[in-house]
């Protein structure tokens, strides 16, 4: 990679990483933090506040990593690496 492509590649990688970490923070910290408020809502037969820490957040983490890799592959492809 030449200097300019390299810089662009890193800038895009960094911005993707920050977005991923924002989603991660929401589902690992903010949602479980507010579990009490979510108890009244029912989802697939579960109280929503319970559903997230036992299943929902976990599914989102798995999907998030697959999505991140898909996007990062595109960033890498565009930079020709």
């Amino acid at each position: 990679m030449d200097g300019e492509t390299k810089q662009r590649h890193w800038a895009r990688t960094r911005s993707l990483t920050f977005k991923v970490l924002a989603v991660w923070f929401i589902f690992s910290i903010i949602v479980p933090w507010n579990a009490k408020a979510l108890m009244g809502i029912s989802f697939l037969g579960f109280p929503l506040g319970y559903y997230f820490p036992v299943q929902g957040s976990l599914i989102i983490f798995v999907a998030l990593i697959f999505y991140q890799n898909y996007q990062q592959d595109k960033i890498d492809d565009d930079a020709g690496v």
Partner: protein
Amino acid sequence: MEGKFTDNLGRIYGLYTGGFIGFIILMAIFEQMGMGAATIGILFVAFTIVIYACIGWLSRTMEVSAYYVAGREVPTVYNGMATAADWMSGASFVALAGGIYFGGYSYLAFIVGWTGGYVLVNSLMAPYLRKFGCYTVPDFIGTRYGGNAARLCAVIVLVVASFTYVTAQINASGTIAARALQIPFEVGVYIGLLGILLCSMLGGMRAVTWTQVAQYIVLIIAYLIPVIWMSNTQGFGIIPHFSYGDAVARIQELEPALQLGAAAVDKPPFGGVKILSVPHFDPQGGMQSWSFATLAICMMMGTASLPHILMRYFTTPSVRDARRSVAYSLFFIFLLYFTAPALATLTKLQLLDPTLATSIIGKSIAEVQALPWVQNWSAVKMLWLNDGNGDGILQLNEFFMRADIVVLATPEIAGLPYVISGLVAAGGMAAAMSTADGLLLAIANALSHDLYYKIIDPKAETKTRLVVARVLLVVIGGLGAYIASMKLTGILGAVAWAFDFAMSGLFFPLVLGIWWKRANKSGAIAGMVLGFLAGTWYLYQVYFNGMTPWMGIDHLRFGIIGASVSLVSMVVVSLLTEEPDAETQAMVDATRDPSGEEVLSATH
């Protein structure tokens, strides 16, 4: 079979899985023909250990790259399975569901933390460390920051964190071996260690990789079959994961009627057992939310700094493969972690709900005491019940049990054949052995590669290096088994500590080494030393010296203190001292660039 071993993985492990299922069916037939429960247990554990040992023997090697990083030829899906086995310890397998059973909302922080951590691994660490081309985690620290002092600090943190963890694993493998093979615990610990060493000693990372894949297959089958079978026989749905919401609601409805939270009347004559006193799920917000968040953060940052996990991603062929294998790792881990809450919920409902045939609470004491599973587990001091108020009826606060029982006894509570209990024992053994293997190898590799080869004798020949690595493996394993045989630690306390130690000393030096070019040697050393010391001091004060925790940060969360000190000291010291030279900055650029040669040469 034609071609290389790695070309035939699908067929080999397909055959292996088929063989294992065949073995389960064979045992089920033997059980029908009248074979005793004890013999089935012995056959399950012994058969699987022999298989792992064979894989270890077949993977023996005298090549440095095969020994340290499995020749960097592990395909993504298999590396995912190996990481999942490496990751899921005896504690995950045996204690997780029990923790959920007893702990309610607060305990779920472990579930979120031990899965969410992989987002950090994928975002911040794995692909970059793979590009770097190191053999061990201290190898990265030592090369990025330069100098033996930084390398040595990383080795020390790694050894403390991993050793804390490995003792618990050897302890778990000893417990299971003792129960399944019917030998004393002190002997079981060494039998477990022997199995662990047979998997790792001759082939290093290569052998550990291929046994861990085999161990994952056993442990996931052993975890899923009992839950799904139990759910089907008890009418909770074909796949319980999607339908246990009703069970949660039913438990919440029953809890007040059963006087949940009433204090125990009696004191059990032995330790480790407790009554259920925490609601299944009743978040209070406020301080409880804060406790949840701090514990989850510790487990997540710890995950991203534990060397035995990070080094698994050094074994893939490329940077992209490293990323992909993180995704598969989390998927394979997820399969167990989203099953554990279902298991805990359904087992609890079976014991509590008076409309179910399996229930015991509210039944007459004499009737419950006559149940075979109650007698079996009472005999090994994992269960205790006593009619404290003398009314002849078993109350919730008269039923004491150990958390481990939830996984181990569920097949018996639900009335499944004994072959399932044997399978569960083999699964627990696989989980404990695979994690112990990864940890022992991480310690021995850091000592042989970083301490012996890089610091003490850089001219050592390949053969000497690999002999030193193996001697260290045996010595450390022996030491771990010796400490485990003294029964100093409970399983879960020590496991959480390992995460806190790792995040206190390693998280920021690793992350900033990649993400902040300005980070330099003095900063990294300050971050490792001060972070690690602050965390350790805080643990000592809170756990041994009776200090009141600051803001609810107790001994399970001391990494919060350690990592904060580490971050601040690393940034301040880096900024006060000179910028890293141009060569180091170019090295950071090369680490971020997925193309081109590895930063460290292939044979370093």
